[in-house]
Structure formats: structure tokens, C-alpha cells
């Protein structure tokens, strides 16, 4: 019976919309995965020596931060990892035993990217520890404990993913712990470090997480089996709808009509809601670069563009695709393309503007840093907003908004490739900034980037005509691509 499942999975994999279609996209995703794998492996190997260099005991230090590592992992999973529900429905009436279905779908999650990525860090790290004279048996036990914890997170995600607000709770938890630790009020790691350390120090302690894992699996299994009914676990949660008129937008005419619709689009769909979350996360991206002397100064503009560009990159990138499920309607209504594109443009501009205001906390690093962000925002509004809209004409991957069950793994990973697609959009400002730095100083670099933004803004109407023309040319192939749902 398992053989049949594997057959179905294989077909689902090779025939998924994201697999067959776009070679360039595949190469990008592949590149992206290799890049991250290398980073993790590099960290696994390097962490030991780097920490030693910093005169810290590597093993203890890693154990100290593991609590944050696992909390963060859980957050990322809640945000991105899918739960296996979608393909179960057609199997229910076929002669499969329910336990088999549940075991298989749970087993499937065990192979997820979100699990094995950790191995890329922990295996090299463990090997380095052993090579440096740590006790082999202790390390193996420690390692087993860690694997169990990774899988505990995996199943926690499955159980908890139906609760919407939880993700925020964990973020708060991390922020509270981290700031309490930073300001030396309360150090959570004092309590957690020995826990992880004991996997190594005391034989048998690693069995605790393994037993918890087994318990959790049994619980998840029972929970899923009990809910294997169309009106329970497999039902798509229906939200209570409330009609919003947003009449204040009426004063903007057609533009207002579209804006109203876009606001509802973002508010009422899980997928589009994550774009807001991502935009907020992007706001903090600069923290990696500013005030960090290890990063080359050239990367500042890189950060400057990302800080205000979160929404632009994660929402703007897919502009007509957000409307893919009713694109045919749009094409038969009396809609001027220009009005449609302009409304999306305004949405991006407003979001960029708000992000820039919110990013004012970077003033803490000095006005030069904030100036970099403002310049990045100018460039985003002037050039990148046009580029994403133009690129949108070629984005023909439908987005299934109605899929509220959270069972859409590959489509979520899609967000990651979106970020990758945005890389070319920052090469130009990077080049301009570098040019300015080479021939003068930072300020000239910033002026060049801002100048490019202003020029883009001046030619807005021209560019819009161009974009409009592109959209019209691509109309038929876009319609037919959007019709092919998963």
C-alpha cells in the first residue's frame, strides 16, 4: 500500500506546477538551496573554530544559544512549513486503512527540507567536536537528543499550525528573552544550557526528548486520525465575513476601487497576509549590516534598499498573480490597465513610505545610516517599483488564494525564490554606490542612487505606457497560464 502512496507522491512532485515550468526558476531555486546548504555546513564546521577564537568554550556556547535556535526554528516552521492535508481527500473513500494514510502523511513531513537542513549544521559540528577530542559516545547521544528536538518541532508545527496567533506569541517570547538577557535582567540560558549540556554529560538524558518525541508522534497520530473527516480536520476554516465599504477611498475614483479591493485582498488571505509579516521582518534586515564592522561599507546600500523594500519584493513581485484566480473577470470588465497598474503602484509606494518611517529607529546608528535607508526608499519608489510591475507581466504562476488550509508547501517556498528574483534589482544601485565610493565618497554614491530613483520617477508615465503595452501583449498567455491550477 505504501508503494501506491509513493507512486502518487512521485507523480505529484514531478507534475507540480512549480516543477515542470520554468527552467530559470528551477536553477535559481537550486542555487538558493545549495547556497543555504553551504552556509549551514560552513557554520557547522566554522562555528567551533570561530568560537574558540573568541575565547569561548564552543560546545557550551552552542548549547547556550540552542534555546533561541529551536524557538526560531519553530517560528520559521509555523510561517513556512506546510502541513499535509490537501491530498488526503481523494484517498478517504478508497480502500486504504486510515492509520496508513495518517502514518504516511506524517512520515512525509519527516523528510521535509525544514528537518534535514539542520543536519547540515549539526553533523559537521559534531564531527569537528569529535576530532577535537570530545567524547564520541557523549557527542552521539547529544546529537540524537538534538535530532529528537528538531522532530519535536516538526510535530509541534503540525499540531499548532491551526492556531493563527501562536506565531506572534513565539516571536514575543524570543524578543522578551533576548532583551531580558541583553539587559541582564533575566538569563533564560542559565536554565536551558545545562539541559542541552546534559545530553552530553549524563548518559541517558538524551532519551528524554526521544520519549517526548514518541509521545508527540502518538498524540499527533491520534489527533489526525480522529480528525480525518471532511467536516473536521479536513475542512477549510471559514472565516466570518464582514462587509467593509472603505468609502473614504471613493474619492480616488477607479484608483480607489482597486485600492479597496487590494486592501481586502491582503487582509483576508493567509498568503497575502504573510507579505505584511515579511515586510516587517525586512525592516530589521539592516541590523545585520549597520554597526557591524565585518561587513564591507558597500553592503550598506544593499541593506538600505531591503529595509524599505520588503513589501515591494514580496508583494510587488507577483503583481498580476495575486489576481490570478479571477483574472478572466478582470479581463472582461471595463477596466483600464493603467488604472489597475497604478493602484498596485500606489500600494507599493505607500508601503515603502510607511516602512521608511518605521525604519526611523535606525537613526540610533546615526543619520548617515538613516539617509542610506531613505535613499534606498527613493530608489525603490523610482526604479524598483517599475521593475517589479514590468516583471509582473512575465510572472505567470497562479497564486491560489482560496487555499486557506495551509497545505501548500511548494507554493510557500515560492516566497523564497521571489526574494532571489529580486537580487538583480539591487545590482544596479550597488554598482552606482560603488562607483560613487570609488570616485569620491559615500555621499556621492548615495547621490547617484537617489538620482537614479528620481530619474525613474520623472519618467513614470513613459514607463507606465511601456508596462501597459507589455501587459496587453502578454494577456492571452497569462490567462491560459492562470487557468492551469494545481
Amino acid at each position, binding site marked *: 500500500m505504501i508503494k501506491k502512496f509513493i507512486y502518487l507522491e512521485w507523480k505529484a512532485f514531478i507534475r507540480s506546477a512549480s516543477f515542470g515550468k520554468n527552467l530559470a526558476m528551477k536553477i535559481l531555486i537550486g542555487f538558493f538551496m545549495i547556497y543555504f546548504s553551504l552556509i549551514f555546513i560552513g557554520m557547522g564546521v566554522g562555528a567551533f573554530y570561530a568560537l574558540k577564537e573568541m575565547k569561548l568554550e564552543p560546545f557550551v556556547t552552542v548549547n547556550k544559544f540552542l534555546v533561541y535556535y529551536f524557538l526560531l526554528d519553530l517560528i520559521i516552521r509555523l510561517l513556512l512549513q506546510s502541513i499535509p492535508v490537501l491530498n488526503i481527500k481523494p484517498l478517504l473513500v478508497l480502500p486504504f486503512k486510515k492509520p496508513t494514510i495518517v502514518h504516511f502523511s506524517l512520515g512525509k513531513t519527516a523528510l521535509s527540507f525544514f528537518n534535514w537542513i539542520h543536519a547540515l549544521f549539526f553533523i559537521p559540528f559534531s564531527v569537528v567536536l569529535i576530532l577535537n577530542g570530545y567524547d564520541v559516545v557523549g557527542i552521539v547521544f547529544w546529537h540524537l537528543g538534538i535530532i529528537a528536538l528538531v522532530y519535536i518541532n516538526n510535530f509541534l508545527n503540525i499540531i499548532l499550525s491551526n492556531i493563527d496567533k501562536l506565531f506572534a506569541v513565539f516571536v514575543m517570547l524570543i524578543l522578551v528573552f533576548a532583551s531580558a538577557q541583553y539587559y541582564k535582567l533575566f538569563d533564560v540560558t542559565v536554565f536551558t544550557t545545562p539541559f542541552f549540556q546534559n545530553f552530553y554529560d549524563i548518559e541517558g538524558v538524551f532519551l528524554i526528548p526521544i520519549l517526548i518525541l514518541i509521545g508527540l508522534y502518538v498524540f499527533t497520530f491520534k489527533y489526525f486520525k480522529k480528525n480525518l473527516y471532511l467536516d473536521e480536520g479536513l475542512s477549510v476554516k471559514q472565516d*466570518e*465575513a*464582514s*462587509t467593509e465599504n472603505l468609502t473614504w477611498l471613493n474619492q480616488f475614483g477607479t484608483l480607489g476601487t482597486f485600492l479597496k479591493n487590494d486592501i481586502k485582498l491582503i487582509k483576508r488571505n493567509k498568503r497575502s497576509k504573510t507579505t505584511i509579516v515579511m515586510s516587517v521582518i525586512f525592516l530589521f534586515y539592516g541590523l545585520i549590516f549597520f554597526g557591524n564592522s565585518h561587513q564591507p561599507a558597500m553592503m550598506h546600500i544593499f541593506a538600505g534598499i531591503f529595509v524599505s523594500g520588503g513589501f515591494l519584493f514580496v508583494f510587488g513581485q507577483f503583481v498580476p498573480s495575486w489576481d490570478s484566480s479571477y483574472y*478572466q*473577470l478582470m479581463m*472582461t*470588465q471595463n477596466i483600464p490597465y493603467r488604472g489597475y497598474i497604478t493602484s498596485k503602484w500606489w500600494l507599493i509606494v505607500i508601503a515603502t513610505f510607511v516602512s521608511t518611517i518605521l525604519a526611523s529607529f535606525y537613526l540610533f546608528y546615526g543619520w548617515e545610516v538613516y539617509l542610506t535607508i531613505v535613499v534606498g526608499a527613493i530608489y525603490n519608489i523610482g526604479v524598483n517599483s517599475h521593475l517589479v510591475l514590468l516583471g509582473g507581466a512575465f510572472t505567470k504562476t497562479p497564486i491560489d*488564494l482560496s487555499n486557506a488550509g495551509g497545505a501548500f508547501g511548494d507554493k510557500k517556498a515560492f516566497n523564497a525564490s521571489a526574494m532571489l528574483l529580486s537580487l538583480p534589482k539591487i545590482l544596479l544601485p550597488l554598482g552606482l554606490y560603488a562607483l560613487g565610493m570609488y570616485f569620491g565618497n559615500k555621499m556621492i554614491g548615495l547621490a547617484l542612487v537617489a538620482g537614479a530613483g528620481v530619474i525613474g520617477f520623472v519618467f513614470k508615465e513613459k514607463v507606465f505606457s511601456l508596462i501597459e503595452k507589455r501587459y496587453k501583449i502578454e494577456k492571452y498567455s497569462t490567462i491560459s497560464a492562470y487557468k492551469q491550477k494545481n
Partner: protein
Amino acid sequence: MIQVNQLSKKYNGTTVLNISNLEIPKGQSFGLVGNNGAGKTTFFSLLLDLIQPSTGYIKSNGIQVNTSENWKSFTGSFLDENFLIGYLTPEEYFYFIGDLRNQNKADVDALLTKHEEFFNGEILKNKKYLRDLSKGNQKKVGIIATLIGNPEVVILDEPFANLDPTTVSRLKKIIKELADNPNVTVLVSSHDLQHTVEVCDRIVALNKGEIVKDIQTSKETLQELELFFAV
């Protein structure tokens, strides 16, 4: 109102639609019948410029649909649920369409009140998004939305499918009313011969993309059609 000239649509060498000449005068109620794959939806998609013709063209009110977009202002259409915006409530959807067709809220409300019976209390003020409505109720929303802004051409693909018997008879009443209006040209496609015969002045049967029957409705039409489609 609608002129079809040497229209054909091919996919990879297979002809799915081939209509050399067809004229639909203004005010006619036009029924398109045929089996699965006969080309009904293809024809409507061509008429709405959702796909490109391989040869020929369609003119709607003198406007060639694949070169100008001016037909959009007087055409209302509902092909399938791809015409609905799932995350809106029915009211919001109607007002959205109304905005695009230059109808204010009062105009839309008037239309909705008129068709309250058709909705059967299951659509308005129900605290549900369109995506959470049943197929039949979604269809009701789509059909009424085509009427917003008094379009001169109304195109409905399989309007009777998925509807309950009561709603079907109410829908027939609505279509007949449209048909009685000399300014409105109604195009309806269906598998159901009887429903189509009841509401249409003229019936065209398609088979494998070709017009095989073109009859003005009379008492004998249903029999003639049933005979034709019988194996």
C-alpha cells in the same frame, strides 16, 4: 449585434471551433447547445477576447473584440467561478463590479432588491465570503453581477448547471425578461435542451466545433433537438 466571420480556433493542429458565418441580431436571445467539447465555451471565450482566434474575427456592435476593448462597457458575462473574487463578500463583489461599470451604490442596491427572490435569502447579509459559498450560490452571485450596469450583451455559460430546481425556474424568468427587452442580446449555452428551448428565440447546435443546427424556436424544436442528440 454580433457578427462572426470565418472564425476558427486550432490547438496543435486540432480544430476545436470553426464557424464560417454567424449573425446574431440585436435583442435576440440566443441559445448554444452541444455535447462536451463541442466548442461552446471556446466560442464564448473568443467573444470575450479571453483567447485569440486562429483565423477570422468577431464583431460585437461593430467593434472587433480582439483589436479594441470598447465592447467591455456594454457586455456582461459570467463563464465560471473564475469570474468571482473569493475573498469578497457578495455585497462587496456587487459594489466592486458596480464601481467598474460606473454604477453607484444605490443603483446596485436597486438591482439586488429586484432579485432578492432569486437569491432566496442565501446570499446577502450572510457573513460569508464568496469562496465559502456553495457552487450553486456562487453561480447566483455571478449571474446577477452580469446584469449590473444594464449591459446590452449578456453572456452566460451553463447558467442552469448546479442550480436547484426552484432557482432554475426563477433564472428562466430572469432570462426571459432580458430576452423581452429589445435592447438586450442574451447568449446562453447549456447541455439542457429543454431549458434552452424555453428561454431562447433561436438555438444553434454545435458539434465538434461546427454549427450543425440553426433553428428559430418553435413547438417542434425540442423534439427535433432531442432526435438529433439521441444516439
